[in-house]
């Protein structure tokens, strides 16, 4: 069955080890799911092609696995998971944060649960005189267990180096919360964060979306997603793809995602079964 001794059967008189029958295995699965606080066995949909090579994970699970290892190292008392030593971007670009950052580790220590969210919607709007290039992202935060409060949330997007077409250029990357969508005109937006990056920069960009995530958890009907736009220092709109920002159609290990750190705000009482 699912449970077996960690070493050859220990000296436990009268204790028999046997392979579980299928219905016993189902019962055991049900009990362990209950211990994990899950109503049923999650069934994630099979990954769409192009599937990552075996043993390699897409960006979000890989980031989460790094957090998992950081947590496991911390539990074993071997602190210092975030001690740098990672490769720096080439000069003259300033360094981009590694994955996960030291700030993530701080959030992690305080969190009871961390969750990454896949981007559900992403499409580039057509460029018109009235409408700037932008990308849209949507994340489903409606399935958060009761009593969990967001302590921090980040939107993460990978930027490739685009030095050929934009030599010595600086981009202003802005992330907005969509407040209201309109059929015939641009959506109402609320500016959340702006980052200035060189065209030559390469790596993950983090944007703080904590307040917005909290609002989406409490009021899922107000979740209309995020919008990202890129302009030059001179104010010219740039297609995010041309600025090197990787979207849903990019490599599986560079796709954008959102990560949120949660802390239990209420005492959970296990329900009677």
């Amino acid at each position, binding site marked *: 069955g699912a*449970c077996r001794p*960690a070493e050859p059967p220990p000296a436990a008189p009268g204790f028999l080890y046997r392979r579980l029958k299928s219905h016993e*295995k189902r019962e055991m699965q049900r009990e362990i799911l209950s*211990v*994990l606080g899950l109503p049923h*066995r999650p069934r994630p949909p099979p990954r769409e092609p192009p599937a990552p090579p075996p043993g390699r994970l897409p960006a*979000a*699970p890989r980031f*989460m696995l790094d957090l998992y290892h950081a947590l496991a190292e911390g539990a074993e008392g071997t602190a210092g998971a975030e001690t740098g030593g990672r490769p720096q971007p080439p000069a003259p670009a300033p360094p981009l944060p590694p994955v996960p950052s030291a700030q993530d580790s701080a959030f992690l220590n305080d969190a009871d649960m961390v969750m990454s969210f896949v981007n559900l919607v992403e499409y580039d709007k057509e460029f018109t005189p009235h409408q700037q290039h932008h990308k849209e992202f949507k994340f489903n935060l409606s399935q958060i267990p009761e009593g969990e409060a967001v302590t921090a949330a980040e939107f993460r997007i990978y930027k490739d180096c685009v030095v050929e077409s934009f030599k010595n250029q600086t981009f202003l990357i802005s992330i907005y919360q969509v407040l209201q969508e309109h059929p015939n005109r641009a959506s109402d937006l609320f500016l959340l964060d702006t980052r200035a990056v060189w065209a030559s920069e390469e790596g993950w960009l983090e944007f703080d979306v904590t307040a917005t995530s909290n609002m989406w958890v409490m009021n899922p009907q107000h979740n209309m997603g995020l919008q990202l736009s890129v302009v030059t220092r001179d104010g010219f709109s740039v297609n995010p793809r041309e600025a090197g920002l990787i979207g849903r159609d990019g490599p599986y290990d560079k796709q954008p995602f959102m990560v949120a750190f949660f802390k239990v705000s209420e005492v959970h009482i296990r329900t009677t079964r």
Partner: protein
Amino acid sequence: SATSRRKQQNRNRSTQAQDVSRVSTVTDYNSSDLKTACRKHELYVSFQDLGWQDWIIAPKGYAANYCDGECSFPLNAHMNATNHAIVQTLVHLMNPDYVPKPCCAPTKLNAISVLYFDDNSNVILKKYRNMVVRACGCH
């Protein structure tokens, strides 16, 4: 009166002490007791064997462990017996048919973290407290 009650209590205590000492000579602590004494046993819960690799990313399983064994008089130091377990044992010796022995149960528990996909392919990293038995004792 208070005085007579105290005397009565003293007399009872003396009788109980004699009972306990008599039982203690009967159940001398030997190697067979050690084998059945309350202690931690190793048990590995394998998520892999449950066929959950498609949604649990890490770990593959964890050493949950469990407590098993007798909590009989005398409660030796290695059992991590609580003070109340000693009282419970004494009361059990006086009324074995009505009062149960202390229970062999965890005294120290550790947390584990589990990383898994949900139905929407979002990834959840959750700490579960009190999942791994680090030490057992009599309660």
